[in-house]
């Protein structure tokens, strides 16, 4: 099966610093791949490169088998992106934010569909027509997640998606991500939340200083071993 997302020997520089070094991985449809790493490991850089917002120094980056540099617009059309800090417009309401971004993506913007997505992320109905300036961080994150859902694309790029969510919302979100993958979507998620990654991911890639230093696959039954990942993340052996 063709991987929905592929990075082959990818190296990326930002401000003349090498942020990603010779990284290779792929994400198949129906798969959740979590890139796990600390601050500055290059996780977000990987997502931005898939979106064509950063240009690789070397290597290849493909979306649905086609080089991103060859057809940037096509790559973005099939990709929904959830940015790290729920970057939406504070002067717009949840409905208005969703309608605006979706209209740019040429996606449907009928209010019923918007409400269904907001229901899925459990955003209170009474808040939906208020401007985001009055929202908590978690509420904004829910709107951003709803936007990613509404794009209804075969590929999702999630940058620290549970940042700002309360524990219950995190659990609900992880369930949602699994259900999206079960719908044959390819999901690339970057996070430093070891527990969340193990809960939801089929595979985990461990990034350290721009290099992919380890990987974990979900066993046939159960989840990826949190303790083993945590130990690798912290740079120590598992007891």
């Amino acid at each position: 099966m063709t991987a929905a997302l592929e990075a082959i020997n990818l190296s990326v520089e930002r401000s003349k610093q090498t942020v990603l070094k010779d990284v290779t991985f792929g994400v198949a449809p129906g798969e959740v791949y979590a890139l796990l790493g600390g601050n500055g490991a290059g996780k977000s850089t990987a997502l931005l490169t898939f979106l064509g917002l950063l240009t690789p120094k070397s290597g290849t980056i493909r979306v649905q088998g086609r080089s991103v540099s060859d057809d940037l617009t096509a790559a973005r059309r099939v990709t929904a992106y959830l940015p790290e800090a729920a970057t939406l417009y504070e002067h717009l309401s949840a409905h208005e934010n969703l309608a605006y971004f979706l209209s740019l993506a040429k996606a449907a913007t009928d209010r019923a569909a918007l409400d269904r997505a907001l229901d899925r992320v459990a955003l209170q109905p009474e808040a939906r027509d208020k401007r985001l300036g009055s929202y908590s961080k978690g509420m904004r994150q829910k709107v951003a997640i709803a936007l990613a859902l509404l794009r209804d694309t075969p590929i999702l790029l999630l940058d620290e998606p549970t940042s700002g969510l309360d524990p219950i919302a995190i659990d609900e979100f992880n369930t949602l991500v699994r259900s999206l993958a079960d719908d044959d979507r390819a999901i690339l998620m970057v996070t430093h939340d070891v527990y969340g990654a193990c809960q939801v991911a089929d595979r985990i890639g461990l990034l350290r200083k721009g290099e992919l230093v380890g990987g974990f696959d979900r066993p046939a039954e159960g989840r990826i071993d949190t303790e083993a990942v945590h130990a690798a993340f912290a740079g120590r052996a598992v007891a």
Partner: protein
Amino acid sequence: MSTIFTIAAAEWRLWMRSRSALAALLAVVLIIAATSVLTAVRFTEEREERTHQQEVAEETFLSQPARHPHRMVHYGHYVFRTPPPLAIIDPGVDTVTGQSIFLEGHRQNTAMFADTRASANVGGFQSLSPAAVYQILIPLLLIALGHGVFVREREARTLAPLLAQGVSGVTLYVGKALALAGLSAALLTPLLIMSLIGVTSGEAIGVSLAVVVAYGAFMLVWSALIVLVSAVVGTRGVVLGTLVFIWLAWSLVTPRLAVASASAAAPSPGKLETDYQLLADLRELGDGHNAGDPAFDALRANLLAEYDVDSVEELPINFRGAVAQASEADLTKVMNEYAERRMALEVRQSRHVNGFGWLSPVLAVSAASRHLAGVDLETHHRFLREAEAVRFDFIEGLNKSHTQELSYTDDINRNQSPEASRRARISPENWTVLDAFRFQPATSNQRFGAAAAPISMLAVWLTSLVVAGVFATGRLKP
């Protein structure tokens, strides 16, 4: 295309929800309204007043009783330059050149101000025309509202999600430029109303709309620049600083530089120096009031030979009138040479200043505005030439009456004999030598021709900035 409109509409929605943006917009709209109303009222009144004064001046001249014709030469006459209808938008040189001239024999008087209000420096809104508002203040509003169109997205980190929706940087650029262009179009509404008022006052509709189009192009230049700077410069403070710097350079520094450069490139000798030189040259032509002046010996000899007589008393014409006629023609020739030299110098200086439109679109639009409104230097020069033609015609008409209708004997004895004095007067029917004067604006074609160069400059500015904007945003990064 719908994406572009969606982006533009989003900018509009932001401005409509921003109190500071609305306050700035309201302030500028009030200034436009105030200056438009004040300038429209002022120039409509002045137009009527100068037209009325012109009629009064002609009636007064024509209603003079029987007089000696040379008294009428010095009684003189006034001509007024009525402002064209579009002076309600751009008074142009009207406030600095004077708009009325006293016409009399042997002199070319300089233009005076027809009315106290017609001069500059009366203060307040009086000197702030709609043209000045559109040239100087509107760009500041565009900067205030538009400087953040890209940099705001970058600072709020919304640029990446925007691009991630499949929107290209160029589409964002065009959409945001369209938002500013839409704002510009809305701000042009008062100008459009003023131009239509001009049409109702007799202005050609083509040239009236061309003024609006010229200012529209100028505002598009600013819109394209603002979006470009906002897209390529990293932080809001630097964007604002850069745009204010450009505004200062274009609006205040370059125009002064242009004037200083024009003065250096085509230095004018100064009025006193020129006037003294002119007087010296005129003195060499003789005194037309003195028929015995040696300067007219040749004229006397020629006339005596032509009529085959031995003395001026025997001439069938009045020799004094003939001297006045010949003297006026000679004086006028010299005065016209001086005037043409001065006007040529002024035109050189004006063209030099206009050339700076390649450095500042403010100079380009101000030149286009003056040409299209019919308030440029060339129009003032045409007024001076037409006024001089009227002066020369009626003076020479009176001199001709002096020559043909008055006997030489009565003329030279009119201060000694009451009877001779009575006979040395001619009837008021002779005053009809004065032609009616109604100063007309240049034709539309003439004004379009004059405005072609500065409008081309605006087109080049706009094209260059749009190309630069498209190039810069083609590979836009968050």
